[in-house]
């Protein structure tokens, strides 16, 4: 009886720890931005480049990598109204999805699609990036993540 109860509790814990966790931030950035003349009224119309050609920053965690893709792919240095969805347990993140409005606090425009890269259709304001990772911890261990861009 005790073993059955313990097994049921462990199953409940595993199931609840594996459901999607959604976080919302009004502002989030991993890049240097314009602190001297900070303004949030500088949205950009991003033209996404093929994110698979963007290398993972050395030593970056999954969360940092997900944000890096949004930053580099859109020439943004800050993401407004960002929703980060984690799939997996606390200790083994399987996927991070970041949705948000990219802005460039220096007032730069969105990136043009680079020659030779796979072009994607221009998006409106929101961009969603999914990073799939196959590791046992939230820090990658030599497995290259795959990418998918979802238009809005």
């Amino acid at each position, binding site marked *: 009886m005790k073993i059955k109860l313990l097994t049921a509790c462990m199953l409940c814990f595993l199931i609840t720890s594996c459901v999607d966790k959604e976080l919302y*931030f009004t*502002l*989030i950035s991993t890049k240097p931005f314009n*602190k001297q*003349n900070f303004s*949030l009224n500088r949205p950009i119309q991003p033209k996404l480049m093929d994110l698979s050609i963007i290398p993972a920053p050395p030593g970056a965690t999954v969360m940092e990598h997900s944000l890096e893709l949004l930053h580099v792919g859109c020439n943004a240095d800050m993401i407004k109204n960002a929703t980060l969805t984690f799939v997996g347990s*606390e200790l083994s993140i399987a996927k991070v999805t970041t949705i948000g409005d990219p802005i460039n606090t220096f007032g730069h425009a969105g990136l043009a699609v680079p020659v030779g890269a796979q072009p994607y259709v221009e998006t409106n304001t929101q961009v969603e990036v999914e990073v799939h990772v196959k590791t046992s911890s*939230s820090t990658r261990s030599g497995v290259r993540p795959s990418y998918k861009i979802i238009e809005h």
Partner: protein
Amino acid sequence: MNTAIQSLTVIAVLLLSSCSQHIANFSAISTRNVSVNNVDLTKLPQRKVTGVDSIYQVGIFFTGILSMQDAVEDALRKGEGDILLDASLTAKWYYFIFTNVFRYEITGTVVNTKAANP
């Protein structure tokens, strides 16, 4: 006797251990509504703070759900501001005998942009 002491020491170390994992570094992060235009953040009053969100595990029961968002909110509340700059987020686990503590800690500089636009 020595073997018993050594074994007890090893068991005690294992039962009272802790570990931490770096999650991410942010140049800016916020959960508050921010509406600013042409503000110099470096000239605003700044406070270095650490925001924490913890849950406890007693046996197989947990006292809540751990959230990075709550750690950021705690830091902003402590610093009485609305943006956390140059923040570092870390997950920590402390293991005690039958009680474990899971915690997110975020350390950074809080600024209050409303001070610039009162």
